[in-house]
């Protein structure tokens, strides 16, 4: 790696890299993000390397292991350029054929193509797949083009052009102005205007200032930041450096969850390569701008995603929040002015500087500009990472991109904004997804988690789940958060166990208001959201649990029972064999009966009963019928 001392040298190096690359040459890319790693991309990679050598195509085929493509449930994903042929769920056994048929003979392997679950149509390229077709991947797009460990790959996709522009063609004030005009809002949750925040830090008195990347992504099911950090660490570094130049910082910290080993590894490589090539350190590109960066691994506390807790943790103190004001912009890390932004926010910066504030602010809605990455998970056909312009409707995200709810089930709600977000019901599906609309709907953008729930999901139980999560993850420093969550969780647990009482809903609301109103940090202030939004939109479910001891979703174990309809049971024994609790009595040609005292309500019998018989039922809120007498159990 040559040491690059000026923008001219950087451009010359970029040209040299591009001159070595032929866009018409076949290139096999393999997604090597964490999700594809989990579905076996390592074995596929080994097979690829072996087969490329074995079939003697090493000279004519380029091969690249890239970051996360986002369509994670379909991994491992292999894309072959220049055609962009997309193969899904690729196994090591498929590789020989991919080389011999697709690379050598230009033949498409039909069985590895995407098949739309709703229409049965196949798609050959990523662009034709509905999941990708309706997205706009301004931030995530580079992930599938580059090897995150390769600085050359990043330079080949215009990497560090924004930094050069900022350092040599713009004053720090102009950079702040550009981010302000772009109207970028922080992607970490609160949605505060990033340019305004930068301005605070820039104008705060002090010679020493810091910039920090918040990669302590902790929402269950959310992995947007993880994928950006793993798949394109140079973009985050470039954004961070531009921010540092703008506010006058010469030192940065990247706070990454310990649970993201690949992000930590790829970042370490990116930092090392940037240092070796002179893109980090003293007098970067001869501009006189100095900047160094360190990676700090978080020790596994959700609360450290909150900025003041994160800074305390960086300083080696317990991860607990401080009161704001003073804000980190004036008194942050080690008492110095500090600008802290989320991974996705930083990754947007090179784009804004390269393409300009006007380009950026033309995308999105009045109050929310640009795109947002969501992690679409739960009861939805196409799960994965979705990047869309702000203002796309929730319905489009779930049904056009997500392909709707699997198994002919009915959509019930979507939880956005992580554990302290809210549930949005069917009636609000047409809202435009942006910071303000989601807040108005009683949910929030948060960092971009989106969990789809179908008719089988009990919303009281969902509220209980999130409160249990927050009860563990609250730091416990202030009373309303620690005790309020504890009491709300207790009440919700009782309701799901059939022990709810009249007045519980009102008590939950009272506790929620106190917790929201008087907690110190955002964790406590937003913790009641799951409770309030489910009461608001699904109050009837709460009332059914409390008044009728009935779970309308047939989900809360304490309130349901499995029974066998004696009229329909054919005595086949399928349920008997499946039951792990030996709760079913029966015998050949005898009507089977479930002993309720022994039943663990696992649902195995319901699954086992042949559809043609349909003898097993799940009931709630009604008494279990008296078991049919022994003497009448004989069939035929």
């Amino acid at each position, binding site marked *: 790696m040559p040491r690059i001392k000026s923008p001219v040298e950087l451009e010359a190096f970029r040209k040299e890299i591009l001159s070595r690359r032929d866009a018409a040459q076949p290139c096999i890319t393999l997604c090597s993000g964490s999700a594809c790693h989990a579905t076996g991309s390592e074995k596929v990679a080994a097979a690829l390397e072996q087969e490329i050598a074995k079939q003697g195509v090493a000279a004519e085929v380029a091969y690249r292991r890239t970051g996360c493509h986002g369509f994670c449930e379909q991994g491992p994903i292999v894309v072959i350029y220049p055609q962009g042929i997309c193969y899904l769920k690729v196994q090591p056994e498929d590789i020989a054929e991919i080389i011999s048929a697709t690379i050598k003979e230009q033949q498409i392997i039909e069985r590895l193509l995407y098949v739309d679950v709703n229409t049965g149509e196949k798609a050959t390229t990523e662009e034709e797949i509905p999941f990708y077709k309706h997205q706009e991947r301004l931030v995530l797009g580079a992930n599938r083009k580059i090897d995150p460990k390769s600085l050359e790959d990043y330079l080949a996709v215009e990497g560090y052009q924004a930094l050069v522009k900022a350092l040599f063609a713009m004053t720090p004030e102009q950079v702040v102005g550009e981010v302000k005009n772009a109207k970028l809002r922080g992607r970490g949750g609160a949605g505060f205007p990033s340019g305004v925040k930068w301005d605070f830090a820039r104008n705060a008195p002090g010679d020493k200032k810091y910039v920090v990347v918040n990669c302590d992504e902790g929402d269950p099911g959310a992995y947007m930041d993880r994928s950006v950090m793993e798949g394109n660490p140079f973009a985050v570094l470039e954004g961070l450096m531009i921010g540092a130049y703008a506010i006058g910082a010469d030192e940065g910290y990247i706070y990454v969850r310990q649970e993201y080993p690949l992000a930590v590894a790829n970042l370490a490589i990116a930092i090392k390569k940037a240092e070796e090539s002179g893109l980090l350190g003293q007098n970067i590109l001869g501009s006189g701008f100095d900047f160094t960066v360190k990676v700090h691994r978080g020790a596994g506390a959700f609360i450290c995603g909150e900025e003041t807790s994160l800074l305390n943790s960086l300083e080696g103190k*317990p991860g607990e929040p401080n*009161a704001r004001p003073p804000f980190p912009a004036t008194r942050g890390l080690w008492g110095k002015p500090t600008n802290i932004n989320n991974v996705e926010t930083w990754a947007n910066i090179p784009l804004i500087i390269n393409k300009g504030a006007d380009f950026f602010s033309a995308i999105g809605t009045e109050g929310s500009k640009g795109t947002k990455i969501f992690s679409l998970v739960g009861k939805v056909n196409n799960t994965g990472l979705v990047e869309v312009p702000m203002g796309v409707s929730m319905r489009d995200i779930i049904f056009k991109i997500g392909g709707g709810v699997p198994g002919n089930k009915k959509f019930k709600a979507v939880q956005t904004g992580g554990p302290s977000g809210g549930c949005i019901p069917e009636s609000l599906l047409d809202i435009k997804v942006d910071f303000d609309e989601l807040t108005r709907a009683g949910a929030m953008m948060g960092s971009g988690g989106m969990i789809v729930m179908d008719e089988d999901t009990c919303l009281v139980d969902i509220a209980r789940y999130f409160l249990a999560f927050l009860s*563990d993850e*609250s730091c416990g*420093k202030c009373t*309303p958060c620690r005790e*309020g969550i504890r*009491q709300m969780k207790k009440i919700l647990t009782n309701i799901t166990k059939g022990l709810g009482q009249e007045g519980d809903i009102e008590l939950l609301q*009272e506790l929620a208001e*106190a917790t929201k109103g008087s907690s110190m940090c955002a964790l406590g202030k937003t913790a009641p959201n799951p409770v309030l939004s489910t009461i608001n939109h699904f109050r009837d479910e709460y009332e059914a649990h409390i008044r009728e001891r009935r779970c309308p979703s047939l989900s809360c174990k304490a309130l349901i029972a499995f029974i066998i309809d004696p009229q329909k049971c054919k005595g086949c024994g399928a349920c008997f064999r499946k039951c792990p609790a030996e709760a079913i009595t029966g015998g050949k040609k005898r009507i089977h009966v479930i002993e309720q005292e022994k039943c663990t309500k696992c649902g195995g019998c319901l699954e086992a009963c042949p559809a043609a018989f349909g003898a097993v039922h799940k009931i709630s809120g009604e008494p279990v019928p008296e078991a049919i007498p022994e003497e009448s159990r004989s069939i035929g």
Partner: protein
Amino acid sequence: MSQIHLQVDGKNVAAEEGMTILEAARSVGVSIPTLCDHEKLAPYGACRICTVEADANGRTNLVAACQHPVENDLVVRTRTEKVDKIRKVLLEQMMAHAPDSEQISELAKIYGADRDRFEKEASFCILCGLCVRYCAEVKQKNAISFFDRGAKREIAFIPEIAVRECWDCKECFPLCPTSALQAAYVLTEALMTPPTPSGTCGGCSSK
């Protein structure tokens, strides 16, 4: 230092920059209840009993008076329906842990808090952290600390330090708003298992 002018419960207050709302209120004789505040300790903001309403820049916020700095033109209300309701619920939550604390019972009378509203989980401790912070900030011994987080958070003495420092000090006991007995209990428990000389096991071999 420039003067800052604000209003607390309708009274005009001239405060110094850097003062908290609590200090400004006290300077004009307005009392705001506190449980985790102590003159010798840095504001901590744990009990939230001092929550007040404050209008600034056209917005009304609920803030902790012990931590929130004074600002020009701030309008503070220390007793509103919202504030009283919050204090009531907070006291009720605390009484699940420390039902017999005199200080909390007195406040409960003022705010109409029901001692038995929530099921008792008598830990006696409301985690105000006075003992922890006094030991760290004033005595600089760090003999007592918080452990764990969330609903599992608790205080405990660190035996290795406590066995050296605590018997002759015990200054934290009278600070406790619930009962000094709690601190004594935790301390005693800690001292029951003194540190062992390095390299030997204090367990089965000690008898």
